[in-house]
């Protein structure tokens, strides 16, 4: 991929803590303007990867490039980081806290105030601007943290579990904002456990497990690769007599059938035809990302 199209590039990155490997041989690229999914079970190394990108940690080996070069102090102004461990000055007023954090991104104070008020209004938090952070609910504190991340108008957003603590209404509002930011050309690296959101927001993903890469690439291709043995069928056949099926479960559209290792969908189709079943639907299924996630995590 041309360097000018790459926002973030990691090559063979390794990081250990007290001799314990947190990240091993991690390599991926995030294109400019895309929403990129960073997936993995708890403790897989996702947060470490984000901290490495932000230069909070330094890798033991490998290289990390942001905007086409190793990250410089000045580059941090162009990156918004929402850490998983939320951190705000809880005894200070909402507006003052956001303005301070925005100014630390190099935004002059008057502009920081304008941006802060804009985003407080955008996420319906303007009434809380004079309240202390600790007086807000966890969900609203989460929104304040998000505002502090985006109000400096960064080009890249690293969002670590941005939906945790949010109710469905606020989560939906945040999804909409993320989509708008992406449409406006922002690069978004989204680390989350919520697979349905990754499926709806991300085109490409990187999955890490025990510090090592287990999946990387186009989401549809990954799902397809993991779905070759899975078929959705709606027919009157008695599946219990079929020798190719290892698992059958009801699906909203019919029966989802997982085939045995040595068989292909065409074998099932041939069996259905031979058994003279009335077939209304026969479709190679896309395995939900959540299933892939669980399958990979349980390996």
């Amino acid at each position, binding site marked *: 991929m041309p360097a000018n199209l790459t926002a973030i590039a990691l090559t063979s990155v390794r990081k250990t803590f007290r001799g314990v490997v947190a990240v091993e041989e991690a390599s991926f690229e995030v294109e400019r303007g895309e929403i990129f999914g960073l997936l993995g079970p708890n403790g897989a190394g996702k947060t470490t990867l984000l901290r490495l990108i932000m230069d909070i*940690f330094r890798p033991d080996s490998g290289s990390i490039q942001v905007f086409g070069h190793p990250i410089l102090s000045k580059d941090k102004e162009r990156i918004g980081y929402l850490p998983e461990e939320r951190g705000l000055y809880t005894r200070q007023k909402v507006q003052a806290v956001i303005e301070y954090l925005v100014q*630390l991104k190099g935004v002059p104070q008057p502009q920081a105030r304008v941006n802060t008020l804009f985003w407080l209004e955008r996420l319906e938090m303007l009434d809380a601007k004079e309240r202390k952070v600790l007086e807000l609910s966890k969900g609203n504190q989460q929104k304040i943290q998000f505002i502090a991340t985006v109000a400096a108008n960064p080009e890249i957003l690293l969002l670590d579990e941005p939906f945790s603590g949010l109710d469905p209404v606020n989560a939906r509002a945040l999804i909409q904002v993320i989509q708008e930011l992406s449409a406006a050309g922002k690069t978004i690296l989204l680390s989350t456990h919520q697979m349905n959101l990754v499926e709806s927001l991300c085109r490409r993903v990187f999955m890490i497990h025990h510090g090592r890469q287990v999946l990387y690439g186009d989401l549809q291709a990954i799902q397809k690769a993991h779905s070759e043995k899975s078929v959705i069928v709606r027919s009157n056949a008695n599946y219990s007599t079929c020798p190719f099926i290892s698992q059958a479960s009801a699906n909203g559209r019919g029966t989802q059938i997982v085939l045995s290792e040595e068989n292909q969908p065409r074998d099932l189709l041939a069996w259905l035809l031979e058994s003279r079943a009335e077939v209304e639907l026969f479709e190679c299924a896309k395995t939900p990302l959540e299933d892939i996630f669980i399958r990979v995590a349980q390996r």
Partner: protein
Amino acid sequence: MSKMWVIARREFLTTITRKGYVFAVIGTPLLFGAIFGISFLTSGTLEESVKSRSEPIAVVDRSRTVDFDLAPTVETRDPAPPAAGMLEKAAAKPPRIVPYTDMTEAIRDLKEGKLSAVYLIESDYMTTGKIIAYSPEHGMFSDLASPDRSRLYDLIRASLIKGRIDGETRERILAPGKLKQMKVSKHGGVENGSDALQKAFRFFGPFSMFLLLTMSIFFSSGYLLQGIAEEKQNRVIEVIWASVEPMELLIGKMVGLGAAGLLQVAFYVGMFLLPAVAVFSLFQISTAGLALSFLYFVLGYILFAGLMAGTGILGSSPQESGQLSAFWTLLSMIPMFLLAPISEAPNSWLARGLSWFPLTAPVAMLLRITSGQIPWVDVGISVVTLATSIWLAIRGAAKMFRAAALMYGKRPGLGEVIRWLREA
């Protein structure tokens, strides 16, 4: 505005509006005032205690030494020399001396409050000098002031020389001297040193300045420690890390909190020390001394801010960080524990050694400046060692920041800290 100044400005404004800061700024002088007040009130209590003894003293003279006819002449003479101070002045009006023959009767009258004391002069007094005093319990100061005792001694002296020595010689035997105390300042000036208030301020003035500067160093670096520990605890440090470099954060905090410390000192100087200098001319510290005090305040603050920051980041809570940093505070306060020897001999090897050791140098030098002239070589050595230590402390703190800022819930061991200092 650079990020460092954004941080400094916020730290300054946040700190000076803290309740703890306001309490320290206003409360510390109040504490000193209270100590002064208690001191003077105590003097007043003593004075009252002495004054209240208007009852006569009884003398049971078994040696037949005392000529009680001379008692009125002894009592009318002012026995207190002009320089003897408040206590003696308070007792200037002597009690009557009453002869008793029966000891039992004298003790009974003492119990009933008719007497303030009973003195028994034993029969072998001329060979042994033995006198037994009986007095009622009057609290802790009752034994410190016994003007009536000196009155008795005067009477005994007068009785012993009666008919043998007269005139001025007799007067000088009875009152050998009327002491007037003078003080020679470091600048060569000679002035009356007998005034109790001036005497008190002569010590407390420079000492207060030393104490306020020392306390300001530890208040300001303590705020830094607390702020860093809180930012680590509430996880905001990771958000800040994503925007600034460790050194920017550290210097921004040091500048902001140092300014808060300077404001504190300026408040003390403006409100208390300058009026004291103007009104009472009490300070004997030269302009160079004041400039040096300021220099050591700044160097001391930067050094301990660096040390506190590097230590504060290691703790998992503000409390734990405070405990860890107590090591630096205790070490630096060693000169305080050696206050008396350093004040008495500010150029002794002990004082000089503590001035050359960077961790004790700020407090030791501030103390020595208030106590006397200091060789410039000591200033040079201490400034060099302090500057070197500051450089090491700040570099070390920045390394600690990067290594330990995101270690939650576990404290690194000493070996790990040393490894970070080497590697980072």
